[in-house]
């Protein structure tokens, strides 16, 4: 347990020493969304139905942008080897690392969402649904992304390959999350979609750490 706290503190410290890494994802999120009213249309007739989908797509791409920081520096400077040799449970370490990644990239995006929702004319009563869908969905993005980024460690063009591996697995999250908001917008029940998102999160939490650990072991043994 204390080891896991050590890993979390270590990774948080590193994230704050180089804030550019996570500010990058947040900046992308904000900039991409401000472009839509400018580039497509500032009219309510476009923005109101599109807002939730736009926010989700931007959040998804922002996550994708930040994935390669997850294990890359650890692999390059030999920290990953030290983590493996220490004999500590690698799946737990992987879970901590993904958790820190979500806190520094996913959470700021969620915190920024209410502001951007106002800019995109999202009806105020839909905001809670959108936020809940993001709270449930973005950790899944980080967990799945962790698998992709661990699998492609040390490869040339790792970024592109990670996207190719990870994007198909992001689609269900996107569908159910935007589906929940759209249902709410139409005045229908939306807790079914949120329940599925919750189930996806539970599934990812239970399985992804083991997949990441296995992928990391393979990557270390290949390099």
């Amino acid at each position, binding site marked *: 347990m204390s080891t896991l706290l050590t890993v979390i503190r270590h990774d948080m410290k590193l994230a704050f*020493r180089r804030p550019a890494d996570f500010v990058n994802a947040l900046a992308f999120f904000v900039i991409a969304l401000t472009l839509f009213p400018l580039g497509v249309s500032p009219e309510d007739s476009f923005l109101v139905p599109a807002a939730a989908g736009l926010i989700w797509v931007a959040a998804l791409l922002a996550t994708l942008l930040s994935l390669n920081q997850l294990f890359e520096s650890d692999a390059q*400077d030999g920290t990953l080897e030290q983590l*493996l040799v220490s*004999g500590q449970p690698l799946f737990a370490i992987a879970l901590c690392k993904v958790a820190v990644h979500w806190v520094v990239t996913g959470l700021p995006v969620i915190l920024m969402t209410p502001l951007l929702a106002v800019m995109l004319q999202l009806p105020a009563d839909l905001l809670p649904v959108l936020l809940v869908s993001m709270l449930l969905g973005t950790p899944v993005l980080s967990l799945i992304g962790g698998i992709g980024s661990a699998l492609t460690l040390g490869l040339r063009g790792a970024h592109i390959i990670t996207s190719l591996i990870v994007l198909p697995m992001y689609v269900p999250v996107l569908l159910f999350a935007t589906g929940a908001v759209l249902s709410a917008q139409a005045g229908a029940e939306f807790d079914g979609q949120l329940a599925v998102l919750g189930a996806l999160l539970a599934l990812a939490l239970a399985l992804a750490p083991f997949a990441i650990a296995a992928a990391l*072991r393979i990557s270390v043994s290949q390099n």
Partner: protein
Amino acid sequence: MSAKVSLLSAQGLGCERNDRLLYSGLDFELKAGEICQLRGANGAGKTTLLKSLAGLTPLQAGRVVVSLVGAEAVPMQLGVEGSTMNWSQSGLGCCFIGHRSGVKSLLTPLENLLFWYRLNHHDSRADSALAEELRAALGWAGLEQSIDTQCAYLSAGQQRRAGLARLALTQASVCILDEPFTAIDADGVVLLERRLEALAAEGRIILLTSHHVPDIANLRQIELRQSA
């Protein structure tokens, strides 16, 4: 880490990489207190062998067995063909310092050493209580002046020393060092040689690679020959 290794025996180790046989049928035994230098040409498989002994890559052939002090009669199998070595079983540990020494350039030597210490030792003392010990270790490594400087601003040799400071603290009974003398100045080489001798005198097993012959008493050498 209570258990101490009295004998490490590798039996029939082999490795193939990119359709090329690096070594095969490699047998050796290392006793507690021995320092052993692994020799071989570039590309002979030294690093590969060290990584598989440290448990980073699976053993491709053969097996590794250790006997513990006080329990020599029941040798323990740490790794067998197709699996990775498992040092953490029954409290054994392994101190591995590779080519990439695992020093984060964004952290100071002290922070780096503290992270490594926490990862490898169960110690309930607070960070502040540990600091003195860690500072002493870094002082030994010749980093008194730069304990609180981010490693990004240190030279390659100083970063290397920040990694090697672990040798002043490690409790592991087996130390595996890949080219520990790289980028280290002449004084540092002597310092490191004396430290390795001291660790061996405590009954540890030390396995290292190096292209220069370290000035160490009773140094054993194992030659990795290219197989036909």
